[in-house]
């Protein structure tokens, strides 16, 4: 028996467990994936030094997986990670506040729905989330940033030399480029070492890039949080009165299924797995899944749409000498046409336009270069243009709609439970957004004086692992799944947190908003428990 049972040990589940433990609440955290060493030295060695084809800590087979139909080309199964710490064990750590307009797209721009809370409600929680993650940033160079009541915890990572070179050219055409707030340590912070710029942040060996394990280990050390790795949650249990009473859990390897009783259940499995768990958890009065009496679970799924572009310069700029994020632009988050199309964040970071991993094939991949090379001289020759290319990524708002949804699919996990199935296809709003990104791309190309430019076609988009809206928040049950605090409408004691509760995609990276909302939920939950 626990006071609170949390499903999922990712950044949201960890933020909630840690906040509750600080308030003296007993918590059990269930994670179906394995423990994931922290700091990630072992992973660094495997990934960087040995480039092993069979790394340890790979997610177990038959546990995660997402079926897919529609026009989304990337492997959604690879976008659901099952390890302690979840996706934020390997994330890019960009931490931005969502602008006020993103909370009111219906009233401001005529599309989507308004959130049942506004920026002002969340502003103090943004500050706490930034302190928790140790966000380095500044608004001094970003005239488009929303107002803040607390300074950034750490100073910003400066622009790279090639960013400044580019910014000078863009400024002449009225295009702005500013720094990127990120959960990396500019200085030693809260027991984490300062970033040394290893440049392979997905497996940061020193904990400079924030990983949830940092706070999860601390929460466990209080003695009030118990972490159950390799333990799958198969159902949320609801009693006859319609109140959540616990979880049906099962060890991933061997072992008996058992019920774990809890006063409160918080589902933080990511937007895809959280919705799946609610849909699997039928109960009297909830024949289509708990929290789904109005049929909203899975229905408002939305991704960010990322379109890749790249610019080639005659000059060798040598981008990618910093592993974190440098330049980007919030100038087009609220363009005049927003509503007909989405707002767009432009990522202009000093990175190589040649990734070690590509979610969708836009241009030649490292694997193809190596497959075709006779020897290392061929590899070097194939990579020779890299210092001349800089990527431009368009990170676009999307709108939920009938062509985007999550349901239970025909494929099953190792326990025989249906896996999630996502149907996702672009609609007219998204195609308008792509056309707008194309306009922006040409502006950047011309302003920068690029010698060549390439941009992905509309169908070659990917989510950036930003999945949202499957349990969207609403003031009333008729319009969504949870209230603004994450309490599931009509099921006392059941909470959902994370990207699942977003009422729209917003325009910027969602993680800081997820953590801010989670801390707000945790405070309310602690009050409920008390």
């Amino acid at each position, binding site marked *: 028996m626990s006071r609170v049972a949390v499903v999922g040990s990712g950044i949201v589940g960890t933020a909630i467990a840690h906040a509750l433990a600080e308030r003296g609440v007993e918590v059990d955290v269930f994670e179906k994936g394995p423990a994931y060493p922290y700091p990630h030295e072992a992973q660094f060695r495997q990934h960087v030094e040995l*480039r092993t*084809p069979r790394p340890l800590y790979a997610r177990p087979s038959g546990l995660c997986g997402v079926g897919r139909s529609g026009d989304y080309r990337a492997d959604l199964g690879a976008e659901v990670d099952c390890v302690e710490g979840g996706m934020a064990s390997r994330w890019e750590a960009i931490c931005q506040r969502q602008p006020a307009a993103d909370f009111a797209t219906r009233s401001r721009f005529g599309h989507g729905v308004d959130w049942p809370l506004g920026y002002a409600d969340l502003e103090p929680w943004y500050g706490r989330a930034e302190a928790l993650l140790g966000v380095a940033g500044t608004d001094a160079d970003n005239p488009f940033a929303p107002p803040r009541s607390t300074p950034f915890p750490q100073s910003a990572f400066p622009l*790279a030399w090639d960013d400044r070179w580019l910014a000078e050219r863009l400024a002449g055409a009225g295009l702005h480029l500013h720094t990127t707030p990120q959960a990396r340590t500019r200085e030693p912070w809260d027991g984490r070492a300062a970033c040394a710029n*290893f440049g392979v942040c997905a497996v940061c060996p020193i904990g400079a890039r924030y990983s949830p394990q940092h706070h999860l280990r601390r929460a466990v050390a209080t003695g009030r949080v118990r972490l159950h790795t390799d333990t799958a949650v198969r159902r949320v249990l609801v009693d006859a009165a319609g109140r959540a009473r616990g979880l049906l859990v099962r060890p991933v390897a061997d072992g008996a299924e058992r019920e774990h009783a809890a006063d409160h259940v918080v589902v933080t499995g990511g937007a895809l797995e959280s919705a799946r768990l609610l849909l699997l958890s039928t109960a009297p009065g909830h024949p289509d899944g708990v929290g789904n009496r109005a049929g909203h679970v899975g229905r408002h799924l939305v991704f960010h749409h990322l379109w890749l572009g790249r610019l080639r310069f005659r000059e060798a700029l*040598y981008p990618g*000498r910093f592993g974190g994020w440098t330049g980007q632009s919030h100038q087009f988050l609220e363009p005049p046409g927003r509503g007909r199309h989405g707002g767009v964040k432009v990522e202009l970071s000093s990175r190589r336009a040649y990734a070690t991993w590509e979610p969708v094939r836009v241009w030649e991949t490292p694997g193809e270069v190596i497959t075709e090379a006779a*020897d290392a001289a061929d*590899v*070097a020759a194939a990579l020779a243009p890299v210092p001349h290319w800089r990527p431009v990524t368009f990170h676009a708002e999307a709108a939920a709609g009938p062509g985007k949804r999550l349901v239970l699919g025909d494929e099953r996990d190792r326990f025989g439970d249906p896996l999630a199935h996502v149907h996702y296809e672009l609609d007219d709003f998204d195609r308008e957004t792509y056309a707008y990104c194309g306009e922006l791309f040409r502006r950047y190309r011309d302003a920068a004086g690029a010698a060549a430019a390439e941009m992905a076609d509309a169908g070659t988009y990917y989510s950036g692992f930003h999945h949202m809206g499957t349990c969207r928040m609403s003031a009333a049950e008729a319009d969504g799944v949870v209230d603004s605090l994450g309490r599931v409408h009509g099921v006392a004691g059941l909470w959902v947190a994370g990207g699942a509760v977003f009422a729209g995609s917003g325009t910027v990276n969602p993680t800081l908003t997820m953590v801010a909302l989670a801390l707000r939920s945790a405070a309310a939950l602690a009050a409920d428990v008390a």
Partner: protein
Amino acid sequence: MITRRKLLLGAATLTGAAAGGVGLLRARGLLPWLRRTASPGLSNAAPGPLAAPLRETLLAAVEALLAAAEATAGPLKDDPQAAASFDARPYAEMLRSRAEGIAGYRQLYRRFAAAADRRAAEAGAPSFAAAPPALRRRLLADLCPPGRLARLRLGLTDADRARFRLYVVQEILDLYAATGAWTALGYAAPPGVPRGLDAYTGPPPARRAAVSERRGDANGAAG
């Protein structure tokens, strides 16, 4: 003489065989089958340490694959001894870790060494490791040639040679692409080496060199 009956029978047989073949491939999934053929898996043979001669043969392959790049494009391009002076330790460690940690690798490495030595003997060399680098490169290109189609062809005719390409040559080149290739391009260090937070805000080393060569270039523009 071919009669009309025989002609019709032959055409029907060919049509049936083609339709059957296509149907069979479609039923089995043509693309996954092609992928499996071009990328055959490893056996479950036990991992274990590399014997010294085997390690020597593998490192001779590393040297042959890397020497040309190090000598022509890398930071050692003006050094006539470059081919012999690159750091083989990361490659040795990668090969060791696979042989000792992952089933099938050590067995494949042994087969690779045997095949390489056989070809070296046919070319008149005492062994692959003792052959000159240029000959080693030629032998490798012949034993396991590059390219997706070549690997598919090998997968159909001699799966071990496809494995040599996939698990020996390509993995060596993959490590190079992630490390030495970046310094060869002019980056100060590859990803994975801590570079501090100052250098990236200044001009890159290659650019600094170019700028100093041009001296009077006020804009610092370099090719």
